[in-house]
């Protein structure tokens, strides 16, 4: 891999706690001597948080899609009636 990708891997491993012990130590040293690296780590963290948000949004969309299927398709009519009875028989 090219150097910039290896640098990304290094930050990623650090954040996911996957660095080998000697690499972890080396990274701590780099953080002290390279003031820019702290910011790189910050951007990386934000990136992972946005990726997770994206993944969660997709999961939610999938769940909503399942809900729509169960509440509209004819083959799930029994299930649907079972649920609706719980709310409209009161």
């Amino acid at each position, binding site marked *: 891999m090219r150097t910039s990708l290896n640098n990304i891997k290094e930050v990623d491993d650090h954040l996911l706690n996957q660095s080998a012990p000697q690499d972890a130590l080396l990274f701590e040293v780099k953080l002290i001597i390279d003031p820019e690296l702290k910011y790189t780590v910050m951007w990386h963290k934000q*990136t992972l948080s*946005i*990726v997770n948000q*994206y993944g969660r949004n997709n999961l939610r969309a999938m769940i909503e899609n399942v809900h729509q299927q169960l509440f509209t398709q004819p083959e799930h009519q029994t299930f649907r009636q079972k649920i609706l009875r719980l709310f409209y028989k009161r």
Partner: protein
Amino acid sequence: MVCNNAPAETEKLIIKLYKSAFPLVAKYVSKMGGGLDDAKDIFQDALVIYYEKAVAGNLELQKVDDKAYLLGIAKHLWLKKFRDDKNNLPLTDDLDLEYEPEIAISANKVLHYLETAGKKCMEILSAFYYHKLPMKDIAELFGYAGERSVTVQKYKCLEKVRETVKQNALAYEDFAE
């Protein structure tokens, strides 16, 4: 819960969980005086929480009963909803993901941008970081020759998305000043 699967399998799993556990949650919510929409919201939040715990391998009991577990989370969410006396659940409080509140404003904007401009990268990255699929499966799912090539692609995507996040945040800072 069997997880870390491709999307098609995950959907099957959600259907299965919906059919087995939603009636229990709906019954509970109905008994507590809630409506169908409340039951739906709470159940969907419970599914997200359960899913995220399961993919991260954070479920204490390996052979945990899906139905009982989901009902447990749902009851907790229902009581919390009452306590907070709000319609919107602060879902993130219950999850282990780290979110930085200060980036929330620009995060939505950048997320929206990435959903269109960098969709493939976001799909690959979320398959790895959120859904925690094995690299072998990700390679297969996205048509890469093997783990090595998809791993390189993953770092390329991280580089690209990280640069977008950075540029966007900096632009927002300029705007805010």
